[in-house]
Each structure stands twice: as structure tokens, then as C-alpha cells.
């Protein structure tokens, strides 16, 4: 087991280093000079050449590229991700941290609900394969799965917005009311009510994917010989499912969960835009538009780390759960 851990960790570290360098190069190669991007004021007015030159020096674009790369690698590992080009007095780490909290809340909640619902419905569908419940759940799942996310979001606003909707339930934008209530209970309810529509949107569009994976995995397991053996031993169906079938069907889910966790941090851009939910997804879009290199690098760094580490963890969990993998 230890050798597995060491080998996979080393691979992960090498991957991270390569991706860091690639990230750095890619952003420098993008067209559009961030120094000139700075001066976007009324109706496209433009700055003088001296101003642009000074801005380039402040931004460090004037340095030769290998110097920039060296500084970048050192700064990354010491946590000094610099100041945003665009919000000049703010640290990149601060900006991302503020938004990451909201994204985690939104996408984390919806992922948990999706996974839980997906596993339950997938299991029940596999159980009643071919029957009404199976066909029904798959049909409904695909129906929502195939919708564009933003369109579904807008549809939910039309249906459930607390002033505009047919059934008036939830607010349609923002992570909280403005200004947010200070009293803890009111704040909690406020946050939850703002979370409702975005979460429902995300759950509906993702549900079918998880359901299908669970369903097909469990169907495969149910045809295995050891399931017949277990039944022949006299175990009840419930016991067979719980102790033999589902634990084996679970293994692919580990991989799926790991991949999903990694993408939590990118935020759900479409949902965040439609609902003006101030998270990491919106931040990514804004940073692109503003050519805000440090913020973009920070965001992609986090995504990289998240994907690599999630894969690493899923490898370990897999090894832990499945002894066959451990001893190969």
C-alpha cells in the first residue's frame, strides 16, 4: 500500500508542476495586452502611450519572461499570488476566498443532493428494471438533463420567483438580500431561500447522469454469480442488496464523486450568471474579460490542484475499498 501511495503522489506532484508551467505560458500568450485593457473608460476612450508603458511596468509585464516564470513559481508555493490587475488593492487569494465560499455552498449543496438522489433513484431503477418507475425516472431525468442550464434557470424564475413567478416562493438573484440580515436565524433563512432556485436548477440538470451510472453499475452487479450464491445462502433480498450488491456497485461512484468534487471549485457559470450568484464561476468570466492575469492564474491553479488531488484521493479510496487494487 505504501508503494502505491508514494508512486501516485509523485505522479501527482509532477503533473502539478507541469500544469503550473503550462498555465503560466498560456496566459502570457493570449492576445490583448492587460496594460491597455486597464484603460477602458467611457465609450472606448484610450490612454496615452506613457500611461500604458507605466502600467506595463507596474504589472511586471516588462520583465523578461524567464524572470517572470521564476517569480511565478516561487510565489505560487509561498501563497503570494499577488494583487489583482483589475481590483488593484486586493490580494488574489482574498478575492478567490470570498467567492469560493459561496461557490462551495451552492455547488457543494447541489452535488450532495444530486449524489444522494442519484444513488437512491439509480438503485431503485435497477431494482425495478424495465418497470414503470425505471422508465419514468429515466425519462424525466433525461428531460431535464438535455435542457440548457441557463434556460432551465430562467424557467424556474418564471415559475417560482417571489414576485414575478406563477407560484411565488423564492428570490431570483443574489446570494443574500442586500443588505444581508445581521441576525443569525434571519441570515440563515435568507441564504437558504436564495440558494433554493440555483440548487434546484443544478440538481435537475445533473441528476440523470448520476442516476444512469448507478443504475447500470448495479444492474451489472446483480447478474454476478456471487449474488446468486448469496441468495441461495438464504439471505433476504434486502441483505443481499445492502451487503453484497451495492458495495460493489459503489466503486464506479467513487470515481464519479471524485471528478465532481474537482469541478465544484469552478463554480457553475451559467447558474451563477442567471441568478447573479456571486461565486467563482462569475469571477472566472469577469477575469477573462478584464485580462486579469493573476486572478485567472489563481483560479486555474485551484482547479488544477483540485482535479489532481481529487483523483489522487479517489485512487486511494478505491484502493482502500477494493483489495484487488491494493495488491496489484
Amino acid at each position, binding site marked *: 500500500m505504501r508503494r502505491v501511495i508514494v508512486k501516485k503522489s509523485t505522479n501527482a506532484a509532477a503533473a502539478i508542476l507541469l500544469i503550473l508551467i503550462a498555465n503560466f505560458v498560456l496566459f502570457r500568450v493570449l492576445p490583448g495586452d492587460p496594460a491597455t485593457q486597464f484603460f477602458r473608460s467611457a465609450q472606448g476612450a*484610450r490612454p496615452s502611450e506613457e500611461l500604458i508603458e507605466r502600467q506595463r511596468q507596474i504589472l511586471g509585464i516588462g520583465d523578461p519572461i524567464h524572470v517572470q516564470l521564476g517569480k511565478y513559481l516561487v510565489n505560487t508555493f509561498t501563497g503570494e499570488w499577488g494583487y489583482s490587475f483589475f481590483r488593484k488593492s486586493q490580494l488574489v487569494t482574498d478575492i478567490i476566498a470570498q467567492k469560493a465560499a459561496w461557490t462551495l455552498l451552492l455547488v457543494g449543496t447541489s452535488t450532495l443532493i444530486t449524489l444522494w438522489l442519484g444513488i437512491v433513484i439509480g438503485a431503485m431503477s435497477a431494482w425495478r428494471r424495465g418497470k414503470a418507475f425505471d422508465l419514468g425516472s429515466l425519462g424525466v431525468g433525461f428531460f431535464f438533463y438535455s435542457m440548457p442550464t441557463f434556460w432551465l434557470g430562467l424557467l424556474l424564475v418564471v415559475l417560482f420567483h417571489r414576485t414575478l413567478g406563477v407560484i411565488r416562493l*423564492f428570490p431570483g438573484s443574489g446570494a443574500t438580500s442586500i443588505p444581508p440580515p445581521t441576525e443569525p436565524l434571519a441570515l440563515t433563512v435568507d441564504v437558504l431561500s436564495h440558494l433554493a432556485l440555483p440548487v434546484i436548477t443544478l440538481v435537475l440538470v445533473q441528476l440523470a447522469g448520476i442516476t444512469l451510472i448507478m443504475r447500470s453499475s448495479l444492474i451489472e452487479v446483480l447478474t454476478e454469480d456471487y449474488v446468486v450464491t448469496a441468495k441461495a445462502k438464504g439471505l433476504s433480498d434486502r441483505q443481499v442488496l445492502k451487503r453484497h450488491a451495492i458495495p460493489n456497485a459503489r466503486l464506479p461512484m467513487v470515481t464519479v464523486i471524485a471528478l465532481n468534487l474537482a469541478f465544484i471549485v469552478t463554480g457553475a457559470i451559467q447558474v451563477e450568471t442567471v441568478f447573479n450568484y456571486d461565486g467563482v464561476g462569475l469571477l472566472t468570466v469577469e477575469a477573462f474579460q478584464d485580462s486579469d492575469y493573476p486572478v485567472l492564474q489563481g483560479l486555474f491553479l485551484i482547479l488544477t490542484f483540485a482535479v489532481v488531488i481529487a483523483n489522487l484521493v479517489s485512487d486511494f479510496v478505491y484502493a482502500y475499498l477494493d483489495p484487488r487494487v491494493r495488491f496489484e
Partner: protein
Amino acid sequence: MRIGDTQEIDSLNPFAAVESSSYFLFAHVYDLLVGIGPTLEPVPQLARSWSVSADGLSWTFNLYDNVKWHDNTSFTADDVKFTIEYIQQCQLALFLGYVGDPTADPVYIETVTVASPTQVVMTTNVPKANMLSLFVFILPEHIWSGIACEDAETVANDPPIGTGMYRFVRWEQGSFIEMEINTNYHLIPEVLARKPGMDFVDKIFFQFYTDALPLYNDFRAGDIDATADLTSRQFLELALNIDDLPDVDVVKLTGDDISFLEIGFCVASDAIIGDLEASGDLLPEQGKRHWLMTNLTTRQAIALAIDRQSLVDNAFQGLGRKGESLIPPATPYWHYDVPDSEEYKFNLTAAAALLNDPRKDGFTLRTGATVPGLKGEGLDPAAANNQDAFADIDGDGIREVINTSRVDAEGAPKGNEGILTSPDEMKFGIWIIDAATESQTAADIFLPWLASIGISVQKFIVSEGQLIDISYGADYDLYMWGFGGDVDPDFLLSVLTTDQILGWQDAWYSNPEYDALYAEQQGLVDPAERQAVVHEMQRIAYRDTPYIIYIYQFVTTVGRIDRFTGWGNWSESPGLGLSGFGNSFLMLQLEPVAAGAGGPLALNLYALGGIVAAVAAGIVTAVVVILRRRRREQMPLGPPPPPQPPLQPPQP
């Protein structure tokens, strides 16, 4: 009052901020010395009254005596003196153009003297025409004197302390800015004297959106009270009654903006390109604009082939005025009303005739033809007096130059014109910014007109940053861009001066006569004299057509008139606006209607009910599932295993 914007502010420091939304904050927090009033005339803001000496060199400003900074320190003339000197010493580009740079500009403020705590006297080296429209925020000396020049553009300036009508409270990053009314604001007593008992807006929440769509939804839902950031379609389609009551809730305000959009030509002469390549400001491979851009006939023919009113109506939903001269009609005193005799009225036949015969010396038809076509087909290229014409000789629908040596241009064909083919063909490119979707629609409207007279133009969509780079390299032919200006015409006039090449200039226009007039008007304090020169400059610019100015856009704002009254008529008073021209004059006349509008939103019982219902449903489901588990029922376990061959008993 809740105001929505699709761009978050980027800094609390005026010297660091570049987003125009930041100026919303500054307009309410800071004051100007002399304000820009509802009809764009100078009005008291920090200066109560003013006078100028007979020789035009000395200006006396009498200040209000009851003004306090937001941190309760008293405002005095020392703050004014400090502000002007700080800007000049630290060379702060944002305001330096207004006060003048003693080391570089021909006209500048020379001295600032404090005659008393409420009187400041400024002298200029020569008469300075724009002393009553200095867009300079007056800064608190007791804060900024402690900030070194090199830090002025990077310091956070949190909180920003000014003398304005609203005090900054907090900035929740990514979400909103909260401002609170400055109860000591010195202009309030004057308003109350006229309208006793008037109520003002106490708090402003400036809320940020990344997209216009949730902003639009929130306005319709009543969560936003005013915004200027709806798209044209949303602005036009918004209903006037948006809540459940049968009254009119929405007021749609359009006001003239001091801005224009233009179709520009890169008219850089070979001489200028050569000079800049020699000095290293241009690389040898730059300067690739098509040489025909320097030919006046080409530009004028294109101007005649574009119906500007149609662009306003069809690409901009009618939300603007037809463009003409350099200074927008928002400042009618400076705007040059182009007379009928000089105007380029839309006429494809006249455009074609101009290209057929630029020197108007008559033409001969090809044998057998009857009349030259819109593309110049039917012209005999061999005829002597057609040698200056542009005609479609090879029948591909694009005019060629019959004899390049007979074309009056400031550039000669190099053979590497732009990205396109032959320098002898009227085949150009037009560069448009990706975010300028309405301009792109406009291009889709006028490019076919140009094609019909034999000029082929290809569209290139680029980011703003790329366009800036291309512009500084003189590597484009036509392009679409715009400018925003001030109440004082100086800035907009300056953009076509030779000095602004590689600065604000995008057209590479260089005309010594124009430059001389620009210098002259800077020193004319008498408005009538100055107006004559300003008009003449615009006449020259219109004739030479480095720009085809096609629209002066309106500012379009929507507001809740059932919650706030006193919006005023913005067509008559273009100086009003959500942040006016650096002022809160709208807020001085806006009065809340019903109490409770804009306060923190109450606990939503429906939402609470919904959540409780969802949780209850979850619990019920769980209970049901658990109860069912107890029932032992046989469930099929998937498909039956494939039939096994029967075990053979061992053969004896």
C-alpha cells in the same frame, strides 16, 4: 434607493479607478469646485460665487463656509489649494489635463492663493478658457497630504472622504456599495428653503450584476429602483406597470450623452509613418493602412453612401440622435450644426458620381454603353479625362484605380496594403470591437450600400485591447469606435490634433490649420470668440472626414416613479442623471414616496414555507422508506442466470 449596474467599481481611489461605474460613487462622495448643473451650465457646488479679473488671468472663488468633510473636519480654501498643487506636483494624469501642467502645457494654473478660509484666488499664465468646468474632485488635505506622489495611484483610499451629499459606508466586494446621506451637506439648506419639509433619499445601495438579464428581472421584480444598464431592447420592451397595482410604476428617461460613435478612417500620411518608423515608434512592418484612406474622395464617397439616420433607427433602436459634427448636441453652445450646403446627405447616386469623376472634368462613355453604373461600369478607362476616376474595369463589382498617379492622396500604394490584395482595388477592412454588438449590426446595414457603389469592405471583429494595438500601429483601414467628452469641448477637439497621434488619436489625422485653431481656442475666455473658433474647427473636421460620426447615443435610465418623484425632464436637462456629471443634483430633487421602499427585505414567509415543506417531504419519504424496509417482499434480482448445463453424474 437601490441602483443596479452591470459593472462593479474597481477602486475607491479616483486615481486608480478606470471603470466608469466607479464614477457613480465618486459623484456622490466628492464635490467639484464649480459644479455642472442640470443644463450643463456652471453652478455653485463648493464655490458659492466667482469672478474673473479684466485681463482674464486671475480667478476668485468664494467658498461656502459651512462645509464639512465626511469625517467632520472643516473644509477650507486650503483644501482647494492643496488639491490643485498636489495634482500638478504628482502629475496625476486623471485631472492634470484640466488644471494644466506647468512643465508641459501651454496653458495652466500658475498660482493658487488662500485669501481667507472661504476665498481662493487662482492665476493662470495666459487666459484659460475652461476655468469654470474643471472636472477635479476637491480632496481633503488632511488625508492626502500624507500620501506620497508615487502612492497616490495605488493607495486603497478606504473609506473615501469627501464633502459630497452621500457618505461612503461600505463596499461588499462583488455585491454592493452602501452610501448614507450626509446630513451636513451644505446645499441641502438651500433646497429646504425652497421646498420646506422635503424628504431626501437616506441610503443608496449600488448593486452589481455581471449580466443585464438578472438586473432586468430584479427591476421588474421591484428589487431594484433605478438603473441605466438595461440593453436597448430591454429598455424599450419594459412595461410601465410592473407590479400588481394599476398605477404607472416606471419612468423611462433618455438624456443626451456627451459622446459619439464614429466610423473612422486611418488617414496616416506616408510622411508621418516614415517619421515614426525613423524614430522607432512604429515598426517597419506596421503602417499597413490602405493608401486610399488618405484620399479625400474615397472618404467623402463613403460618407455619402451611409444613411446615418437609418443606422440610429435600425441598429440602435432609435435611442440616439443622428451624428454629424465633433461636439455633441448635448452642449448646444459648442455643437456645430452642419448646414445643408455642407452636409453629406445619403445619396448612392451622388456617391457613385463622385467616384466616377472626382475632379468633375466630364467623362466619356465606352462605345455602346449608355450611362455609367453605380460601380463605375461603363466608363472608358482609356479616355484622358477619366484617368482620375475609380471604375470597375474587370467586372468583379469592385472599383479599381484607373491611374494611381492621378489620385490626390497623402500616401502611395506600397503593395502590402492591410491584409488584403491589390492596392489598386477599393477593397478595405473594417475593424469592430467584439462587445460593440450594435455597431456590428450597423456595419451589417451599411456594408451592402458600399458594395453597391463598388467598394468592398470586410469585417474584422477584435477585442478592445487588440484594436488599441492595431490603432497604434496604423494597421487598419476603417474602424468603428467612439469617444466620451466633457462639458468643455477641449478634450473632444484635442483628439484630432497632431499631438494626440499615439495618444488619444485613432484616425492619424494631422492638419496644421486645425492644430493652430485648437491652441487658439484654449486661450479665448470670451465665449462668443471661442465659439466661432470651435465651430470652424468642427467645420474643417467634417469636411475632411477622418470620422463619419453617425450617432450621439442617449443615456437610457429606468426608475420607479411610484417610489420616487422629482426625476425631472432629462431631455431638457442633460446634466441630470444617476450621477450626472460628477454631482448629486438628481438626488437633491428626488423625493421618496412611500416609507419602507428600499429597506432591508423582510423574512419571506413563502420561502420559509417552501423550505419547511421540502424538509417535511424529505422526512416523510425517509419514514416511508424505513417502514417499507420492514416488509419482506420478494423482488426480482435482475435477469435469470444463463442456463447451466446439467451436471453429469460421473461415469462409472
